[in-house]
């Protein structure tokens, strides 16, 4: 077991090094430089551009720049091109903003998808099954930002609640109770929106997993023993159907960055996805690269955790 974990970690570290090299190359080889973001600015003289290039080591060969970046990243010295703030601090602050959105979104996804999927599988071809199938396809097919706009209009017009941003302007001095309620209102809609596509996909998976399990021999055996139907389905069936979702749980972690760009932009939520979007606009290479690196770390961590959990949960898997 320990051996297995160490081998896995070692493989992932090697992968991570390659990923960082490739993403560094992609970002640096693409045309467009931080110094050229604002070409129409008359105050930018060639010598200014040259000064910027020297300051950011942009004149060095690519592999030297890579070494600079890695070195700065691990000593915590990495500074953003844009405002000279430490990158890690910036990302950490945004991470704290993204985290509640991500957690609540994930909770909604998992708490909705499982009942819907199980119910649909148990009553296959029923009205409920057909409707939920159709709705999940519709939810996958709708562009997220289009739906968000419809919901924003609906919420603002019917409930008259604030939905954009993280808090209402001017409420900073209000008592804690009001501030937290305000935060909850701001959190609800974006979390729901980011949960919708996930719920639709996950409930389909749950349904097909349950369908696979339902006709197994051990289910028939459990029924033949005379166990109550609930116990047959939830103890014998669901537990076995749950196995693949351990893997999926690990894979949701990277959604923290990649999946949230659109929603954080619409709802003006100062999170990691939006940080990445702003960094891309400003050609802020250190931030882009570090975000990419962190998200790769998250993916690899997620798969590692799910591999280990899988091995723990399923005794059939041997090392």
């Amino acid at each position, binding site marked *: 077991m320990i051996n297995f974990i160490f081998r896995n970690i070692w493989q992932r570290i090697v*992968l991570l090094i*390659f*990923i960082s090299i*490739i*993403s560094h190359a*992609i*970002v640096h080889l*693409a*045309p*467009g430089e931080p110094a050229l973001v604002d070409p129409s600015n008359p105050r930018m003289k060639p010598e200014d551009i040259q000064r910027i290039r020297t300051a950011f080591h942009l004149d060095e060969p690519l592999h030297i720049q890579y070494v600079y970046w890695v070195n700065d990243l691990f000593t915590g010295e990495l500074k953003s091109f844009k405002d000279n703030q430490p990158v890690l601090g910036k990302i950490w602050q945004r991470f704290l903003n993204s985290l509640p959105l991500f957690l609540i979104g994930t909770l909604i996804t998992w708490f909705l998808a499982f009942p819907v999927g199980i119910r649909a599988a148990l009553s*296959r*071809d029923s009205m409920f099954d057909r409707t939920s199938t*159709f709705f999940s*396809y*519709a939810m*996958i*097919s*709708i*562009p*997220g*930002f*289009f739906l968000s*706009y419809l919901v924003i*209009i609906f919420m603002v017009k019917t409930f008259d609640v604030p939905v954009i941003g993280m808090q209402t302007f001017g409420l900073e001095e209000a008592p804690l109770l009001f501030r937290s309620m305000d935060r909850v209102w701001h959190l609800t809609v974006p979390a729901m929106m980011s949960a919708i596509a996930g719920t639709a996909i996950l409930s389909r998976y749950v349904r097909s997993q349950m369908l696979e399990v339902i006709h197994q021999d051990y289910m028939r055996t459990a029924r033949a023993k005379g166990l109550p139907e609930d116990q047959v389905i939830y103890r014998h069936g669901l537990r076995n159907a749950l196995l693949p979702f351990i893997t999926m749980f690990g894979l949701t972690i*990277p959604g923290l*960055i*990649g*999946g949230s*760009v*659109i929603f954080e*932009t619409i709802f003006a939520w100062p999170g990691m*996805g939006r940080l*990445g*979007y702003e960094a*891309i*606009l400003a*050609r802020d290479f250190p931030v*882009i690269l570090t*975000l*990419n690196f962190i*998200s*790769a770390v998250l*993916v*690899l961590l997620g798969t590692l955790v799910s591999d280990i959990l899988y091995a723990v949960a399923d005794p059939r898997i041997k090392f």
Partner: protein
Amino acid sequence: MNEPNPYLEADALPPSKGLFQERWDILKRNRMAYASFWFLMFLLGLAVLGKIFTQTVVVFDPKVVRLSEKFLPPFTAFASTLTPKEDAPVLGIYLLGTDELGRDVFARMLEGTSVSLTVGFVAVGISLTVGVFFGGVAGFYGRVKLGFITVDTIIMRFVDIMLCFPTFFLILTVVALLPPSIYNIMIVIGLTSWMGTARFVRAEFLSLRDQDFVVAAKSQAIPEWRIIFIHMVPNAIAPVLVSATIGVATAILTESSLSFLGFGVQPPDATWGNILADGKTFLFDAPWLTFIPGFTILFVVLAFNLCGEGLREAFNPKLRSTS
């Protein structure tokens, strides 16, 4: 003694239905998938006609700007005295209204149909080509060693690396840094979505590699590229093509998300995504500018998804309902 053996007779007869016919029948039974299929066929026709009528034989001109005719709701008749007669829409009516520059939304949607579908199909085509190539090479030459590692290891590690990138973020990075062009968007979407295909084709090839027809082909000294692409790929491709249907839907959605952030297909090319992204600014004054492209995307992507799912069911006996 000479009685004909009924079992042998039956063996000699061709099967009552061909493989294709059988699958077609299964697809037909799934009414939503079948309807989606014909809807998509209709849409393809519409895209071709739209291409012809907006560019070659200009009947609907999406580029005419009529500043006096801004924000007209759908089904408004053309009744302007300021705009010259030759700029009037066909039949003298704005079927889907006009936008902030007085352009005919119907003509723009028609132009967008072909552009959006092209983006979807070309992106998926690229991802299929790359995926089949890498998957095929990894599956067929997997045991060949380059130095100390096998070809299979190299390719599959590369696939793992690609899977670790947050896809949308990567697309955004590349599209934002490259000069904006419709081809870059297709290429980038294609190059970031081939990993699933590669894995699938590799798995298929691993099981096909040792089958008799491949061994027979090898024994006849047929060149290896021919064995891979003429003998093996057709045996592995059906499920890949089916998931490509859903890939087209995803590509159209990705393009619209990129348009929303301002990195999608740039004007003057119209796609559903950028009509929607431009229209959202006028959501309260001209809701049709948001709703028409929004619901078009919804219905088309839904049709691709339902059709793809129906095809997948038809091509995979395990998924069929037993009832």
